[in-house]
């Protein structure tokens, strides 16, 4: 593995601080607008009533989780190919943020399910595969929380690659199996009215911005920790 130092120079640059802050402020403003739209602008859904409003933050959480795990997948591939710590740090950071957002999916989903189906959890294909995805990346983080070594990092990268195979399965679960979970909005746009679609788009944008903000800070943290270890080793 390469010696550790400032591998993501752009993130340590003083210029990134105002940019990251700007993204954070923009994300917060967008979330406030999204919240207003979800509560007051979007109409009440006919069959599920107000419980359906969970959807406006449930779907963006799932989208961000998938985006994060896609970054983990790409960064893990790059790490296995180039053996550079910067890719490993990016994969680890994206995995942690991805787990946070997937946790939100698994918390908000059952609350919605209780209102819609009368039960917090059913062993439905999409719910089960999402839970498996969450467990895979929890395992990845547990593996990374123990003592670091290149071998362990390589093993974790392989786990991340294999784990990502679950994402297309989750995506296709509603088509492959008979499931209670609503189908994809993209394939069934008739289910949403224009104000609902607009609200969802604002919420998707706000969570994506929030993800970028959190990822920048998580990678900076990883880099700061590596620098501490580097200095410690240099001191003997």
């Amino acid at each position, binding site marked *: 593995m390469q010696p550790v130092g400032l591998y993501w120079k752009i993130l340590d640059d003083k210029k990134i601080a105002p940019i990251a802050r700007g993204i954070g402020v923009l994300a917060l403003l967008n979330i406030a607008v999204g*919240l207003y739209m979800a509560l007051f602008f979007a109409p009440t859904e006919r069959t599920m009533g107000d419980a359906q409003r*969970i959807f406006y*933050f*449930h779907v963006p*959480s799932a989208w961000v989780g998938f985006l994060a795990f896609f970054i983990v997948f790409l960064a893990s591939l790059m790490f296995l190919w180039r053996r550079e710590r910067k890719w490993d740090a990016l994969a680890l950071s994206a995995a942690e943020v991805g787990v*946070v957002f997937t*946790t*939100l999916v698994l*918390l*908000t989903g059952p*609350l*919605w399910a209780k209102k819609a189906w009368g039960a917090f959890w059913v062993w439905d294909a999409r719910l089960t595969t999402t839970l498996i995805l969450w467990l895979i990346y929890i395992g990845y983080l547990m593996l990374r929380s123990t003592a670091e070594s290149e071998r362990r990092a390589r093993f974790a990268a392989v786990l991340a690659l294999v784990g990502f195979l679950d994402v297309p399965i989750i995506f296709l679960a509603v088509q492959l199996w008979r499931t209670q979970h609503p189908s994809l909005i993209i394939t069934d746009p008739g289910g949403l009215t224009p104000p609902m679609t607009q609200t969802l788009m604002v919420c998707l944008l706000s969570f994506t911005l*929030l993800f970028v903000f*959190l990822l920048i*800070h*998580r990678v*900076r*943290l990883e880099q*700061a*920790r590596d*620098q*501490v270890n580097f*200095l*410690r080793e240099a*001191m003997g």
Partner: protein
Amino acid sequence: LPYALIAVVLIGYAASLRRRMETAQRERAAIESKKN
């Protein structure tokens, strides 16, 4: 309730990131002061 839950998780995570960053910065400062 779901929105409050989302807020608690996200604020909690952001706070944990900040705390861990401060710890790393403190450790770095301590090592550098020892070095000097």
